[in-house]
C-alpha cells in the first residue's frame, strides 16, 4: 500500500472515529420547559435502545386532568442512561399503575418525553441527570 493511501485511510478513519453523538434525535418537538403530571396504567413496556418506550393508558377519573386522558407513548433515555438513574427492566410491567411527570409534544400528539416517574413512596425515578432545583442530587457512584 502506498504511503499516501495509508495516510488517506488514516485520516478517514480518524474522522469517522472522531464523530460525536449529539443525541439520538432532536427534542425540538417537545415542550421541554413544560412539566405535566400523568397518572394511568402501563399498557406496553419496551426496555430497549436507543430509547426506552412505554405506553400509558389514562382513563377519566376524579382528579385526572381530562386533557391527559388517552393512550400516550412515553419516551425515556437509553438503557444505560436510565439504569444509572435506578431503572431496571422490571421497574414497571404491563398493568402496573404509574404516575409520571413529562414534557408533552408541541403539536398535541399523544407523546411525552419522560422527566421522572413518582414511585408509591413518593421518591422519583429520573429519566436522566437533569434535576429540578428542588431536587438536586449528586450521584452516589453506586447504583441504588
Amino acid at each position, binding site marked *: 500500500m502506498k504511503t499516501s493511501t495509508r495516510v488517506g485511510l488514516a485520516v478517514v478513519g480518524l474522522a469517522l472515529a472522531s464523530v460525536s453523538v*449529539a443525541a439520538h434525535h432532536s427534542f425540538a418537538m417537545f415542550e421541554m420547559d413544560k412539566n405535566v403530571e400523568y397518572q394511568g396504567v402501563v399498557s406496553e413496556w419496551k426496555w430497549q435502545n436507543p430509547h426506552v418506550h412505554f405506553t400509558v393508558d*389514562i382513563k377519566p377519573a376524579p382528579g385526572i386532568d381530562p386533557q391527559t386522558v388517552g393512550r400516550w407513548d412515553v419516551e425515556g433515555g437509553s438503557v444505560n442512561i436510565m439504569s444509572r438513574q435506578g431503572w431496571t427492566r422490571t421497574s414497571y410491567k404491563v398493568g402496573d399503575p404509574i404516575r409520571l411527570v413529562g414534557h408533552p409534544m408541541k403539536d398535541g400528539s399523544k407523546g411525552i418525553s419522560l422527566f421522572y416517574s413518582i414511585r408509591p413512596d413518593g421518591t422519583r425515578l429520573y429519566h436522566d*441527570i437533569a434535576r429540578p432545583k428542588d431536587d438536586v442530587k449528586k450521584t452516589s457512584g453506586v447504583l441504588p
Partner: protein
Amino acid sequence: MGERMLLAAVLLACVSAPVVHTQRPGAGGARLEGDWVRIDPDGVGSFDGFSGVVPAAQLLPGVTGGGRGGRGRGGPEPTGPHPEGVPYIVVAQPCSGGGGGRGNGGLLINPDSGGVHFVEQKDEVIFAGERGGVRHIYLDRRGHPDPSHRAPTPAGHSIGRYEGSTLVVETTGFTAGAVPGGGVRTPETRLAERFELSPDGRRLTIVYTWEDPKIYQKPHVYRLYFERAPAVKSNGALVSYALEEWCDAGDPIEKQSIVPPKQTIKK
C-alpha cells in the same frame, strides 16, 4: 584505583544528570482512568436547561453564532397534528449528530449523561464516548501537525500534559461547526481543556476555553461536571458496565422517536 575513580565519576554523572521530564498519568495521585458520567449539580431541570448554564459566547461583530440550543436542537420543528401510529423521524443522521460536540457539551460528551471512558498511558490518553467515537490525546511532546498535511476532523488534534493530577489538553484542527453557548469554531480555532480531578478522585470538572481572535471578543469559557460511573458488584468487586452502548446509523429505529399510539381509551 584509577578505574574505580572513573567508575565513581560515571555513576555520579548519571545520578546528577538532569532528570528527563516524562509525562506520567495522574502524577498528582488521583487518576482520570475509568468511567465517568455527567451530573447536574445546578438543578437545571431539563435538557434544555443544560444549555442555560453555559454562558453566551462573546462574538466579534459580524460573526454568526451557532445558536443556544440544548439537547438535540436543530431538528425539524413539528407542523400540525401528527398521525397516530406513525413514528416521528426527527433527524437524518442520528449517529453523527451535530458532529464532534457541535451543539452539545463538548467533544464526545452529550448533554445527557452518556458516559465517557479514559484510558491513561504513558504517552497517550484515550478518551472514548459511550456511543462511539474516540479521541487521542498525545502526551509525548509532539506538536500539532502541519495543517497542510491533515484534514480537519470533528474532534480535531489533541496534545496534552499533566499539571499534577490535572490533564491539560490543547486541540485544534476542527471541522467548522457550532460550540456550546452560541459559539462557533473553524480549523484555526483552539480549544483548551482542563480535566480537573477532585482530591478524592471521585469528581471531575472539565473546563473548556475556546479561543479564536477571528471569532471571539474574549475566550469562551464554561465547565461541565462528572462523577465516577455507578458501580455494580461482580465477583466481589465493584465494576462499571456502563460504557457499552453503540449508536448504529444503519438501524432505522435510531431515527425513530415517539409513535403516537392509536386511541382506544373510551370515556
